[in-house]
């Protein structure tokens, strides 16, 4: 097991990502932040908390999206996963959406997420923020717009992100 980001580094990275968002979205008046269930929402919760301190807008549109029913591998053995809550209480028509997930790997989750988002309206744009980008492992033509940390990995390896609120400590590791 190798630590990719420790608590202090993660803190700096989160601040950088939040500021990058402010740079592109200013007051977030037409922006919606969508965290992906189940693990991405711990990341997006943090980003939202930071945005509320560094941007002028304290009521940024924020939703959570579960993609279970949009997966492309349902027919596989053991593919049924426990669905989590989708909680998007606003329409996405003409919104600038920032999709947030913790680890970007094959890109299939993001494909499903984009499919799911379109059921809530026609966004003006969808951008992707990921804490860890596992480079060169994409199976679909999907690339992130905001990256916390890039890492080259083997397919068999796993990147795990731990959050203080859920797991007791902040850390990103490669297993």
């Amino acid at each position, binding site marked *: 097991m190798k630590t990719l980001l420790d608590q202090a580094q993660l803190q700096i990275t989160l601040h950088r990502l939040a500021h990058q968002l402010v740079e592109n979205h200013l007051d977030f008046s037409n922006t919606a932040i969508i965290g992906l269930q189940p693990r991405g929402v711990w990341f997006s919760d943090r980003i939202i908390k930071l945005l509320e301190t560094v941007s002028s807008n304290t009521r940024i549109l924020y939703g959570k999206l579960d993609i*279970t*029913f*949009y997966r492309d591998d*349902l*027919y596989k*053995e053991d593919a*049924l*996963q*426990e*669905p989590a809550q989708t909680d998007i209480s606003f329409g996405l028509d003409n919104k600038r959406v920032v999709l947030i997930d913790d680890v970007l790997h094959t890109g299939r989750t993001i494909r499903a997420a984009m499919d799911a988002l379109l059921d809530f309206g026609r966004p003006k744009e969808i951008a992707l923020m990921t804490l860890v980008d596992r480079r060169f492992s994409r199976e679909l033509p999907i690339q992130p717009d905001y990256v916390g940390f890039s890492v080259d990995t083997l397919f068999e390896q796993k990147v795990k992100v731990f959050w203080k609120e859920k797991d007791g400590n902040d850390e990103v590791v490669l297993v």
Partner: protein
Amino acid sequence: MSLSVKHLLGIKELQTSDIETIFKTADNFKQILQRPIKKVPALRDTTVANIFFENSTRTRTSFELAEKRLGADVVNFSASASSVSKGETLIDTVNNILAMKVDMVVMRHSASGAPWFLARHIDASIINAGDGVNEHPTQGLLDAFSMREKRGDLKGKTVAIVGDIMHSRVAMSNIYCLQKLGAEVIVSGPPTLIPKHIEAMGVKVEYNVRKALQQCDIANILRIQLERQHKPLFSSLREYALYYGVNRQMLDSLGKDILILHPGPINRGVEIDSDVADGAQSIILDQVENGVAIRMAVVYLLSGGRELPE
């Protein structure tokens, strides 16, 4: 996450954990049904045949909507319009439909046990949409789901099932489901409509409806199924309504807030009066709404783990 069974034949064969899984999944689908776009593409590679050898509007429509909202392709098939009326056997009929590459069969049949028979002879997953006087599992599930939604955990609660128990597959599925969830069940109605030895299922029998209602938190009022009574089992509908019908006056006199369910179709003024069926305690339309979510959950959970052909 998956069910312990390949088919949904009856609630009798389900584990309590299966029921919990179905409820949890149905919660998600219920939420999807509130959205402007009430559809997900989860089963876009699945074809479901709804085969109804007995009349049904609510159940068939509910299944069809559930399947369509999961993105499945649906074929409907009713006995009156089919070769069954020309003498084709059940297995032949179903195999012919399966030869058209159908992955799942939802079947209603007037013979008790028909889905079990079918499950032994064909590969596809089967969902029992009511077989004779045996079981109607999705109704049992949606009733319990609706009760739980309004009154929380059913453990320790008492549910009265009132009316025609003898001819009711809904009663059977309700009893199995409620008991697995830890509820006490009382059955009530005229002695001629309550099967002998039903106590062996662990339910309490109370022929006096008023007394049954006094002891319960929730009442599921069943329809009098005149079409299944080959000889008269009570003298008249008027008499039935008088002694066994649930009306506002009786409910108010109990001095407690009993939740009222009815699986439909309602015989207004017979087993239940309009002012009860349409009153604040009634959740009859919630049951119908929840029916779609429950059926989506069952169809979804039974279609996982199916390998695509090479």
